[in-house]
């Protein structure tokens, strides 16, 4: 553990305690049934901390076994985070069936575009393949959350405070991870220690935000809204779009007006 430095060790311990506390809060406030994937994600991050601790104390920070444990657990944590984000999307938009059916494809597409973008831009060396893949997934997660919140805003769907905090925390942490991975790819040798500290601090801040958000029981989800007959949409929306087009054309008229014959 000596290779990590005191600050990192203390931060690690504080983070682990915060993770345990958040898990306790989730269980005590009976939020596990509402956020099973998020609870699993927090559990996985705690398990990752424990396994890494064992690996590093056993064979050192720079050993091959620590590296393998680090990346293996990171893959699992990223997958768990993906499920937590999917769960969040379902909570926020899922009740509005029509919007949800359309939005989920758009949200997935935005994530896929971000992933491809990151992989194309970032992939240069095989040795950095894992970092690049992580960068891509983190960018995709951030893009998915931002798309989700944009959809919610567009359709005037209110996002309850706990969900909002979860979304902010997940998005901010992904953004920090993208920045970290980007810098790590370029200055690998001299940056590992700082990368660890910065990433851990960001995660610690997110844990505090989530604990604050989930300290109360999340109110039971509101009943599904009474949906309209499908024909209403098909009748009204084309008409509304037509009216919007007509209003749009009025603006064009401002430029097309001819001078009156005076």
């Amino acid at each position, binding site marked *: 553990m000596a290779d990590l430095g005191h600050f990192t060790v203390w931060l690690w311990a504080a983070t682990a305690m915060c993770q345990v506390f958040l898990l306790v809060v989730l269980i005590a406030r009976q939020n596990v049934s509402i956020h099973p994937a998020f609870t699993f994600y927090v559990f996985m991050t705690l398990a990752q901390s424990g396994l890494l601790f064992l690996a590093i104390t056993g064979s050192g920070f720079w050993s091959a076994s620590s590296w393998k444990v680090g990346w293996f657990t990171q893959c699992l944590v990223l997958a768990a985070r993906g499920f937590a984000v999917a769960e969040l999307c379902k909570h926020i938009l899922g009740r509005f069936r029509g919007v949800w*059916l359309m939005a989920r494809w758009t949200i997935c597409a935005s994530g896929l575009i971000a992933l491809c973008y990151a992989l194309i831009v970032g992939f240069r060396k095989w040795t950095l393949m894992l970092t690049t893949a992580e960068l891509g997934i983190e960018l995709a997660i951030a893009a998915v959350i931002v798309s989700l919140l*944009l959809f919610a805003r567009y359709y005037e769907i*209110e996002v309850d405070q706990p969900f909002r905090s979860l979304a902010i925390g997940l998005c901010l942490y992904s*953004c920090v991870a993208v920045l970290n991975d980007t810098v790590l790819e370029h200055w690998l040798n001299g940056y590992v220690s700082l990368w660890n500290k910065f990433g851990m601090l960001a995660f610690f801040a997110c844990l505090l935000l989530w604990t604050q958000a989930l300290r109360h029981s999340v109110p039971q989800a509101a*009943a599904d809204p009474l949906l309209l007959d499908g024909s209403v949409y098909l009748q009204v929306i084309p008409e509304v779009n037509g009216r919007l087009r007509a209003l749009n054309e*009025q*603006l064009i008229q401002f430029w097309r007006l001819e001078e009156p014959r005076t």
Partner: protein
Amino acid sequence: VNILLLLPFAAVALLLAALVWALRPRRNSPANPSDLAGLEESGRQHATYFGVIRQAMSAEDFAFLAAHAPSGLVRRAHRDRKRIAILYLEQLRTDFQRLLRVARVIAALSPQVAASHEFERMRLTMQFFWRYRMVSLGLYAGLLLLPQLGGLNQMVSELSLRMELAMKELGERAAVAAELASTLNGRGLDMA
């Protein structure tokens, strides 16, 4: 500086800006049944003011004024016409926003929505607000000159007829929309 290093930073900056935009408090008051039902009322108001606007924008009146009135009065008439054009533009925007809200409420409560309609509305919205900004700037900067605005007369007359017909139909729809909005407010979709 390597451009490849900057691209992820730019992507993150873009995402954070979008995040802040998506989370910022709404300026508009929440949609409510009376707001949506106000569509029909808005149509009536339009019809009431069309006559005044038509008169104010009359090319004949302006020509007469330019020929016979002192320059101070002509300038004042210019200013008033410009003000009316701006008010008219504001009204167009209000109508546009109100229709958008109705469409969103209906879409949110529909069991199935067509992506083509939704994306078309998004495209129309972006187009409208871009043009709205351009026309506003043109009017404030004096790029759209008063002789051009004189043609608003014709435009308003045409719109008047279309609006009266459209609002009659939309009045019926507004009643449906009002019901929808109360459903939204009562069953989970908080419009605040």
